[in-house]
């Protein structure tokens, strides 16, 4: 609630203490435009002030890392002169306020993060979470978010290869919309977000600047929600995929012709960020003339221009003798371009507007002097109580339980969503949506890039460290079943209010869990994002880290495993450890009631052996499928549905069939193969029914339940 008495810094989301540090940096009271810049740059969203101290724990180094965390995207070397750029981001808060535009601009933003590095974006994924679909508002949000992803992604011309969808009560007041993008580039095309040298010219490319999205980073993304959320709608940006498409092509041409020294996209904090960060990274300053910025509307003030989060804009740093050529490229691709500034030899960011000086600050101070909080950390007292009440299902009716699981929108087919996304553009999608991981071929190299993302809020509520470690192991196994070796990780940490010590404890545990698993796997974290304040009316979401693992298949299997390649007579093998009776965080537990118990921990030694086996088998087995959501019974059912073939399974027991313990996958193979050490034969493909013990169900009935999961829920 804003009143006349509220100081301006507080209206902009700053604390009094933060305001005092601005005064101390400048040695005077800040001008309005300066205060605007510090308020957005020092927001939680931009500065990571609550999480930064803990994120240092992540392992970030490996010989193949070209660019680690801190730039717009992580970049790794995939050999033969090729690099891969990857980045994940959240657009949770905007998507709750305005689902279509919130999701659409999330896609636009993540694309810019990747093509800022010099890469052509080749694939998108999204990880989206909502409350149960029996509530109309959740259906509205789900429909709007999927529509926004489709509307933007399809039109911008980058394929969306799916991702993951989870439903849980805790997301009703705070849906999660995470987006991830992969790009590829030639080594020599790598560009960084640096201003380069003094005298370089700053050229603003793309859409005109308007009043949309002002304070998006500070007012919206860095605060909690209450009943007044709808009044924040003007803080949500509006996306234009056509403008972005032209911007991508224009920028790629600039890189190809080596016309830019550095480039930065305009996302959160707009021009404030795009001028100060590249200047700060180069240890330089910049003169910026806001009168040269091409505007969408008249009468905009300097703070508005500096804070605007209008989409589809990039700031390129260009040697003076290249400026004309840059402007010609912009003209050819039919995008606007303005020369708005010059890089200074000193460290000052000097901004003028209407012929007057409106800001004169040390450029690097906006990023480097941001507050760093060591917030109190405390293990929640309720956790022991949860651990003391594990879910114990006993014996369950196998087929009824299986059908119930397949009908869950978070377990059944996600085709309702991904068939609205163009997932085939660029002729690279070898393994697409509906599989454990995506596999893209890299044209002309014989290599494949595999990507999988995993999240599981319920598992991480019960044990954020074990839960998040298991996400890394699961994503790694998912890329392995396509034939790829894990190469790097990105993560998006969606958590509640960091001012609560329990939430900070979850953050610390999640970082530890991801770090430990990555170290065991020998893969670095090359980028990430933290989204805090995911709470509404005081209730925090389950801690929901989302982990993306990038893998390299070199060479790519000639015929990589797919779910639809099983044939009658093929044997079904289960590879991995024996399951335990632990159902903590499983879908069977979700079906029956509240979360309880402590999840099974990942076992690095077993995990590595299983991944090795999966990579090896991917070159010989027609089908490999990870055992995860819903357990083994669901894994087998999905193979039967995709291949249109029944199966007979010689296993029984709730733990065997519905447990979700880690490090397990199914291989469907031709008889007479060389059985792996960790494997056991559990059945055979054939017929048109799935038989488990003495129960059976037709594949058609399985398919009906599985395919109808989301469509039925959307009709409810």
């Amino acid at each position, binding site marked *: 609630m804003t009143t006349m008495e509220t100081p301006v810094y507080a209206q902009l989301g700053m604390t009094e203490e933060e305001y005092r540090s601005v005064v101390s940096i400048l040695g005077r009271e800040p001008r309005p435009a300066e205060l605007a810049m510090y308020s957005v740059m020092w927001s939680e969203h931009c500065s990571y002030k609550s999480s930064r101290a803990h994120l240092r724990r992540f392992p970030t180094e490996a010989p193949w890392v070209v660019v680690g965390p801190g730039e717009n995207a992580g970049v790794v070397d995939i050999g033969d002169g090729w690099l891969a750029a990857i980045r994940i981001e959240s657009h949770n808060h905007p998507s709750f306020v305005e689902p279509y535009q919130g999701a659409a601009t999330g896609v636009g933003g993540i694309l810019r993060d990747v093509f800022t590095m010099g890469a052509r974006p080749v694939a998108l994924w999204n990880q989206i979470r909502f409350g149960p679909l029996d509530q109309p508002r959740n259906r509205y949000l789900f429909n709007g978010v999927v529509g926004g992803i489709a509307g933007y992604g399809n039109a911008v011309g980058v394929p969306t290869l799916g991702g993951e969808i989870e439903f849980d009560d805790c997301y009703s007041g705070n849906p999660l919309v995470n987006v991830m993008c992969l790009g590829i580039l030639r080594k020599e095309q790598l560009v960084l977000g640096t201003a380069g040298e003094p005298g370089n010219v700053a050229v603003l490319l793309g859409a005109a600047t308007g009043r949309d999205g002002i304070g998006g980073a500070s007012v919206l993304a860095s605060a909690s929600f209450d009943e007044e959320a709808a009044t924040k709608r003007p803080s949500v940006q509006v996306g234009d995929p056509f403008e972005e498409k032209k911007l991508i092509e224009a920028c790629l041409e600039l890189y190809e012709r080596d016309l830019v020294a550095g480039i930065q996209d305009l996302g959160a904090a707009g021009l404030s960020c795009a001028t100060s960060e590249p200047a700060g990274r180069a240890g330089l300053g910049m003169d910026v003339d806001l009168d040269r910025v091409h505007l969408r509307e008249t009468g905009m003030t300097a703070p508005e221009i500096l804070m605007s989060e209008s989409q589809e804009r990039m700031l390129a740093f260009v040697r003076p003798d290249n400026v004309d050529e840059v402007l010609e490229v912009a003209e050819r691709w039919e995008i606007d371009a303005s020369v708005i500034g010059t890089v200074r030899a000193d460290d000052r960011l000097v901004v003028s507007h209407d012929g007057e000086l409106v800001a004169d600050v040390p450029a690097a101070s906006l990023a480097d002097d941001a507050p760093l909080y060591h917030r109190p950390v405390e293990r929640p007292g309720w956790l022991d109580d949860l651990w003391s009440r594990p879910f114990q299902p006993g014996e369950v009716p196998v087929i009824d339980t299986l059908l119930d699981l397949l009908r869950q929108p978070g377990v059944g087919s996600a085709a309702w969503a991904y*068939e609205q996304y163009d997932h085939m553009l660029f*002729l690279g999608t070898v393994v697409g949506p509906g599989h454990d991981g995506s596999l893209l071929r890299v044209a002309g190299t014989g290599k494949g890039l595999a990507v999988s993302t995993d999240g599981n809020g319920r598992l991480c509520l019960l044990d954020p460290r074990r839960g998040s470690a298991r996400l890394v192991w699961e994503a790694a196994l998912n890329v392995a079943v396509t034939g790829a070796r894990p190469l790097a990780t990105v993560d998006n940490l969606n958590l509640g209010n960091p001012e609560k010590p329990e939430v900070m404890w979850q953050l610390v545990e999640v970082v530890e869990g991801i770090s430990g698993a990555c170290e065991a796997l020998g893969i670095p974290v090359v980028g990430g994002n933290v989204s805090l304040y995911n709470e509404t009316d005081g209730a925090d979401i389950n801690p929901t880290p989302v982990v993306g693992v990038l893998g390299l298949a070199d060479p790519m299997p000639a015929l990589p495993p797919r779910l639809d390649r099983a044939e009658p007579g093929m044997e079904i093998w289960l590879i991995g450890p024996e399951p335990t009776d632990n159902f903590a965080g499983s879908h069977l537990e979700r079906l029956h009631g509240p979360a309880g118990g402590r999840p099974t921990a990942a076992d690095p030694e077993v995990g590595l052996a299983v991944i090795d086996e999966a990579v090896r088998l991917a070159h010989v087995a027609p089908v490999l499928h990870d055992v995860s959501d819903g357990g083994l019974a669901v894994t087998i059912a999905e193979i039967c549905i995709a291949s249109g073939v029944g199966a007979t399974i010689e296993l029984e027991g709730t733990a065997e069939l519905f447990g979700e313990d880690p490090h397990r996958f199914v291989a469907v193979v031709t008889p007479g193969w060389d059985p792996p050490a960790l494997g056991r034969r559990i059945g055979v493909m054939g017929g048109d029914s799935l038989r488990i013990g003495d129960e059976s169900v037709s594949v058609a009935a399985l398919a009906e339940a599985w395919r109808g999961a989301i469509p039925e829920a959307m009709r409810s």
Partner: protein
Amino acid sequence: MRVAVAVFPGSNCEHDVVRALGTLGAEPELVWHRETDLEGFNGVVLPGGFAHGDALRTGAIAALSPIMEPVRRMAESGKPVLGICNGFQILCEAGMLPGALIANRDLAFICRFVEVEVVDTGTVLTAAAEPGQMLRIPLNSYEGNWVDPARTGRVVVRYADDPNGSQDRAAAVANEAGNVVGIMPHPERASDPLLGSDDGLVLLEGFVRSLRASVPA
């Protein structure tokens, strides 16, 4: 033989078309939409995408782009002209094919493989196919629902089922002469078994054969 692949701002399938036609022995070249001369080309492809951001109406602005003048001249002189997806929409908007493409029946974007049947082999696109041949090719569109109130269109490929409400289940339509064809599913996306199907090759091979028979403008 040279074939022009027109690129409008917002086109996105141009590289895929170039790659697929290139492997079949054609010499595809990207040509920007402001070009007014297609001399030396045996034919032209308008690829899929979102030309001009689908502003106003899908294909409406692209139909007025400078390149459409030489495309029209090629069509009138009997040279092979192929529109895929958005290219099909542009050819309808330009009046070079009958009918129009409106939103899918279920008002949702559709991206999936569909079964289609070749019902007319007398066009530049279907010249290498057998009558009645069934093909599995990806559909990828929101405005894929062809309507032709005057019923003058020549349907050359039909959907086996009815994914989008298209009149006569039309997936591809030709002009009377058969040298201008628009197809909604993407044959270039079904050009490699690794991607799920190579059924689109028979269509692209037919088009390349037609290019070969065509004398450059």
